[in-house]
């Protein structure tokens, strides 16, 4: 046996790595092209703008969800905190004006997030239970304050500018969403805090032993999730021209699904903002394409479910190959 003739075997993980890096963008392009050929209307400015506006709230919610998942937890309360922040903000308009109401929305979201974080850290309770409870608390408060009815007292200027406004054809809500994603992506990638989020999600005990203040990191993570839910509330109320107590029901699960479809590890510690973005686009595009193709909404639900399951399987194959 002459070991010199032994060539290096290509790593088994390469195909899966390639799939992770280029698979989703490719899938996105494929869906867009196929739908565009079948339905030329798909590429119309109106539809693209409409799509971008549709994506925006989920795009923002996914930011907080990504932080929570990366830190090894999750946040089930994002959607109902968004609804509650929207309700609180619109109710506050007569007292604090439009600008003040936007700040109220973000602050209410931040408070919910801090409450989540304080309970998770202070009592060492699992994020699943705490945020599940908070989901219900926020929803209950929204229903109490509105009597269960939508508030239509959204200032017109908010709806006109943020809901349906555009700069050079790009919807304003989309600009806000992209700016938020980019800013938090930079925090995640380039700051000590971002690095600590990954460390805590990867091995909280090791991070603690190495001098990372795990409690503070988690508190900040859920505060970010709450505050971004507040930001999503602004976009959401502007877009639907109303503050609905049950706005975005089910979006907490959509946000988790999007992040996981993007390839972020459910167990925490690995994943990027770009992956989360891909996840949002794939899920959003898929339902839009199915809509245009005239697929029944019942079947759509099924297809989306299958895509999520496929994403999880691909994730497993990839991590197994990487070990």
């Amino acid at each position: 046996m002459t070991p010199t003739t032994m060539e290096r075997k290509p790593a088994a993980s390469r195909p899966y790595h390639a799939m992770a890096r280029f698979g989703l963008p490719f899938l996105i392009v494929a869906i867009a092209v196929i739908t565009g050929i079948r339905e030329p209307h798909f590429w119309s400015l109106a539809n693209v703008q409409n799509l971008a506006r549709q994506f925006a709230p989920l795009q923002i919610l996914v930011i907080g969800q990504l932080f929570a998942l990366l830190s090894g937890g999750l946040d089930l309360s994002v959607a109902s905190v968004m609804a509650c922040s929207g309700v609180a903000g619109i109710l506050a308009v007569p007292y604090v004006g439009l600008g003040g109401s936007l700040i109220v929305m973000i602050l209410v979201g931040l408070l919910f997030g801090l409450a989540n974080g304080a309970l998770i850290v202070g009592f060492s309770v699992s994020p699943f239970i705490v945020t599940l409870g908070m989901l219900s608390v926020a929803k209950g408060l929204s229903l109490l304050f509105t009597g269960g009815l939508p508030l239509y007292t959204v200032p017109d200027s908010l709806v006109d500018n943020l809901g349906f406004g555009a700069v050079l054809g790009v919807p304003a809500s989309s600009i806000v969403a992209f700016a938020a994603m980019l800013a938090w992506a930079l925090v995640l990638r380039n700051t000590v805090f971002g690095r600590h989020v990954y460390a805590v999600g990867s091995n909280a005990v090791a991070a603690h032993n190495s001098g990372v203040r795990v409690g503070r990191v988690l508190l900040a993570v859920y505060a970010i999730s709450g505050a971004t839910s507040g930001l999503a509330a602004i976009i959401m109320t502007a877009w639907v021209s109303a503050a609905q107590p049950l706005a975005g029901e089910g979006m907490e699960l959509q946000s988790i699904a999007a992040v996981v479809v993007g390839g972020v590890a459910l167990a925490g510690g690995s994943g990027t903002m770009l992956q989360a973005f891909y996840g949002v686009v794939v899920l959003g595009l898929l339902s839009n394409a199915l809509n245009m193709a005239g697929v029944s909404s019942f079947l759509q639900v099924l297809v989306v479910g299958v895509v999520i399951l496929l994403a999880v399987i691909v994730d497993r194959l990839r991590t197994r190959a990487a070990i």
Partner: protein
Amino acid sequence: MTPAPALSAAGLYKAFGSTQALRGAHLDLEAGRVCALLGENGSGKSTFAKIIAGAQGADRGTISRDGIEVTIDDPASARALGIAMVFQELSLAPDLDVVDNMFLGRERTGKLPGFFDRKSEEKACRAMLDRLGLTLNLRRPIRSLGMAHKQMLEIGKALSQQPAILILDEPTASLTRREIEQLFALVQRMRDSGTAILYVTHHLREVLEIADHVSIMRDGRIAANREVTRQMTEADLVELLIGKTARLQPAAPVASSSVPLLEVSDLCTSTSHDVSFHIDNGEIVGLYGVVGCGREEIGRSLVGLHPLLDGTVKLSGQTYKARSPAHALAAGIGFLPSDRKQEGILPNRSIRENLMLSNLWPASRGGVIHQRRERTTAVGQLAALGVRFASAEHAITTLSGGNQQKVLFGRALAPRPKLLVLEDPTAGIDIGAKHDLYNTIRGHRVDGMSFLWMSSDLTETLTLCDRVYAMYDGRIVSEIVAPTMAHEDHLLAAVLGRGGAMHRI
């Protein structure tokens, strides 16, 4: 004709990403003999052992059992062939208790199918613990046990399968002398009853003590095979291993300053009472004792990981009480835990991120990390630590256990603490890496850094430390100034409670 070996592995190849761990390794194991597999970190020993035990698959190669070629796909098929392995990284389920772990995957079923027989499991478990010389509450969760107890249980788990082939991968990494002797007695009994044993280690002394045969692994191949004879010395093994002669140099004593860096008075934790000791600037102080003597809790109480019940600690003359490792580090006390897998590494992060975790602030401005500066710092430190790596961006889990330990050591050193508390820092590290580590420590000591050295290795404790405290049953029973190997018997007697009243030599 000689009988076929109990187990023969031939031409094993295995690659991890771009790292070629095994390149045609060949080894035979014979019934009733202990074969030691000796090699440096990253030489492929653990990979070789894991392939035989079915924990990993080989890319190429054949394995024969009693001359018949077999396929080992997973640990279950290895077990069916009578192969049991004690893993270097423990494979215990932390939330299950002692008994449940002992029988994990092969629960004894009772009269009703699917229900296991608790009584018979408990009885067998107790018998095994007796053989191991352990007294433990059978229903204690593994999480609550110390590293050495976990390791002994891992060994017991493998032994209780009564395997025909037993693989031990660095089994003594966090055991003290007393437990090692117990383990060796057990291994010898198994060998005499016909078990073929593969003993993976880099403790030269253990090879001479327990092995009949030694195989040297270098760069994924078996580089040498020797029968272990009475004439063989550690120097012979070192020569085989690294092809040059190396000696463990005793530490030069360092002049002590007037104000001690750390002064501990009458410290009480859940397992120790009235412990008093001090550490001077630039001093390496050893704390030695058998498992359960309470030293682990003392070390951890200094960094806020274990409650400090009573007593005072002064750091540079100031009263000090750690609330958390972060707080301790800010005050100047760093910590390196012994359980690498559970408490040390960030498994799905890169080597660079693992190394830099405690030292990100110097490489950043206003909380924003300077990416290029971080990368250069990391690569420089990895080279200085002697880590064998393909790229600093690969996951830390692509490194061998010993190289992972070097990275964690680098992480603990990087913030330049005044005092570094080390729990078994050389567990699972080969002799070359140990020397690198000793030299690094001595280099930092010259700069005034101090070390609280809590190793299970008697030899290195005596040769590296400036002073050694011996602990027995929660108390310090002896202090040795400027220790040498001549103090071995004294220290052993002290930690086993046979040293009489507290004394200082």
